[in-house]
């Protein structure tokens, strides 16, 4: 009888300690060259800034909502930078860091949260699917896409891998478990990247699962592991490894990035109602950016000029975010009917025409009132 009810703390892959010390791992090679690490540091700082600006813009009424990635930068930049251009990513709604790595602009990200679109970017242009709000749905899309990759014969050392992102809460959803199973049975080239930020809105992960999340994979017949989600080196190394395995036809992997949601669930949320501030304090000491900075300083890989340069870049980005957000054009009323169908649709085409007439009737009566 396999009894896993005991909740002993499982092993965690870590390459960079909270103090900024690099500890090589036998299974996950990583080469912390100055350029590489400085690049990661820059990514981390810039996405945190983008995120902070978006939160502020929501407070100012410029966005309807924003889901902050604060605290999860390393998990996202690490995994995002592990992707090859041909790889396809299926995010949930908080993966601004991954979006950043895929070249999705802040403008496109803001558009959805501003309510000017339900999408925002071309999934094929970036090999980055649209944000998916309904929890778990995208894990099946990723699995199906990966089954398509198999059918295209696009596996091999330079083949295509697929990654999908979801949270600890999403592991409770039927769809996510069906995706695990479809991926396992089909040996599909997909990496399941779970950011366990320990909360699903107000519910701590004990309300979602009794076993450590990474162990779910073994039950479906594929490997799972837990990585320090605040360690960008480790997240990059384990994701690269899992993607390569997928690429080469060795099937799915579940990565549980153990991290923490340092902010509110979204700008609509008030975490003081359900969690102690000490918890957040404790995690602040494990900050994903601070430890990279420590490493750079400790190793003499970056000086004050470098850090000032990144900060200046962040300033500029912040300004750009604010300007671009306000400049996002509102959609036109008739956009409601846009691209509901690919082919002509007698009924909807007529409804659209009637609405156009209706709108026009006001123009006559009240000028530009509408």
């Amino acid at each position, binding site marked *: 009888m396999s009894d896993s009810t005991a909740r002993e703390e499982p092993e965690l892959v870590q390459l960079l300690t909270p103090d900024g010390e690099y500890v090589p791992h036998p299974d996950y090679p990583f080469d912390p060259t100055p350029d590489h690490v400085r690049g990661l540091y820059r990514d981390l700082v810039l996405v945190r800034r983008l995120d902070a600006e978006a939160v502020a813009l929501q407070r100012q009424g410029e966005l*309807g*909502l924003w889901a902050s990635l604060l605290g999860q930068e390393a998990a996202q930049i690490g995994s995002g930078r592990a992707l090859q251009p041909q790889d396809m990513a299926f995010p949930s709604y908080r993966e601004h860091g991954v979006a950043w790595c895929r070249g999705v602009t802040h403008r496109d990200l803001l558009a*959805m*949260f*501003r*309510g*000017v*679109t*339900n999408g925002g970017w071309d999934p094929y242009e970036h090999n980055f699917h649209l944000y998916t*709000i*309904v*929890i778990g749905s995208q894990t099946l899309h990723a699995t199906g896409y990966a089954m398509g990759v198999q059918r295209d014969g696009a596996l091999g050392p330079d083949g295509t891998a697929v990654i999908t992102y979801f949270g600890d*809460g*999403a592991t*409770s*959803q*039927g*769809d996510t478990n069906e995706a695990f199973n479809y991926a396992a049975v089909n040996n599909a080239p997909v990496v399941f990247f779970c950011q366990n930020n320990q909360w*699903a*809105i*107000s*519910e701590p992960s004990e*309300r*979602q*699962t009794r076993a450590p999340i990474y162990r779910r994979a073994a039950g479906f017949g594929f490997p799972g592991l837990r990585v320090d989600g605040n360690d960008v080196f480790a997240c990059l190394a384990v994701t690269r490894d899992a993607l390569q395995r997928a690429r080469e036809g060795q099937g799915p992997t579940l990565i549980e990035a153990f991290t923490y949601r340092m902010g509110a669930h979204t700008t*609509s*949320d008030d975490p003081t*109602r*359900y969690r102690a501030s000490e918890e957040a304090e404790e995690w602040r000491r494990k900050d994903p950016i601070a430890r990279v900075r420590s490493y750079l300083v400790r190793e003499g890989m970056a000086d004050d000029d470098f850090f000032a340069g990144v900060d200046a870049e962040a300033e500029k980005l912040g300004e750009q975010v604010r300007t671009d957000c306000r400049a996002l054009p*509102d*959609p036109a*009323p008739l*956009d*409601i*009917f846009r691209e*509901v169908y690919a082919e002509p649709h007698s*009924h*909807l085409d007529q*409804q659209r025409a009637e*609405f156009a007439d*209706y709108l026009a009737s*006001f123009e006559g009566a009240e000028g530009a009132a509408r």
Partner: protein
Amino acid sequence: MSGTELTLGKAINAGLRRAMEDDPKVLVMGEDVGRLGGVFRITDGLYKDFGPDRVIDTPLAESGIIGTAIGLAMRGYRPVCEIQFDGFFFPAADQTFTQLAKLRARSEGRLTLPVVIRIPYGGGIGAVEHHSESPEAYFTHTAGLRVVTVANPEDAYWMIQQAIACDDPVVFLEPKRRYWDKATVHTGGSPAAATPMGAARVARAGTDLTLVAYGPMVKVALQAAEADTEHSIEVVDLRSLSPVDYDTVFESVRRTGRLVVAHEAPVTSGLGAEIAARVTESCFYHLEAPVIRVGGFDTPYPPSRLEEHYLPDLDRILDGVDRSFAF
């Protein structure tokens, strides 16, 4: 009769609390309904006062919520399930349509399943996708369910209690953009003595045209009726969507000879279609014009910057009224 000023949201909260006090078998369950009190705070304070055995923060899985609620009901409980937003109901469609709705008939009455499914529904709050939908027609087409919605705090307070007391499964649709609307609630008396949840209500008397609305649209309908100074418009607040109280609707239409039905849901195969079909069949010789439907377009709910155009507003309703009188 004691009266208290309450928002619609607080009225549901007060009704839930009273139902839980009155019957220890009443449970509240859903995502974030516990310590947080739900994303709209409708279950605020219940966790603190009734504890985790009666206010259950469930895993993030809607099929699991309804499926386990069915099991709890089989064991004698009366679960009140919260679906966080309309757009997140669908993972629970199978358990709701195929199990919850059918189990009483399947068991020839041996199983009684007093499960309430609370769903904040409809648009108008500037939300992101999946947070503004009006799925009522999926429910009204499903035999075995009762479907109700509320338009004011008084109904909210009583009807949630009636829904919980009802031995049938009830889908309780909460017009989320009205959660903050305030009015006096008369908390004296008992749910059994209040207007039955199955009854429609004439919200405004009139003689020239009947305007049927429900949930979030009742307020818009009343405003439209006020705004139309040429015609005397009667507004009927349906309250119950399945079954519909046709006695009240027919009586009104037979007097006015005209009917406009307004809802937020897409028009095609929406509840307005059913009302139009039945009213036409039963009041054929009284109708001076066909039933006019004013509703959402047959598209996915648009991004929030377009919702003011998507949702039927005063102008769109009056346009419908004009179309009726044009016949």
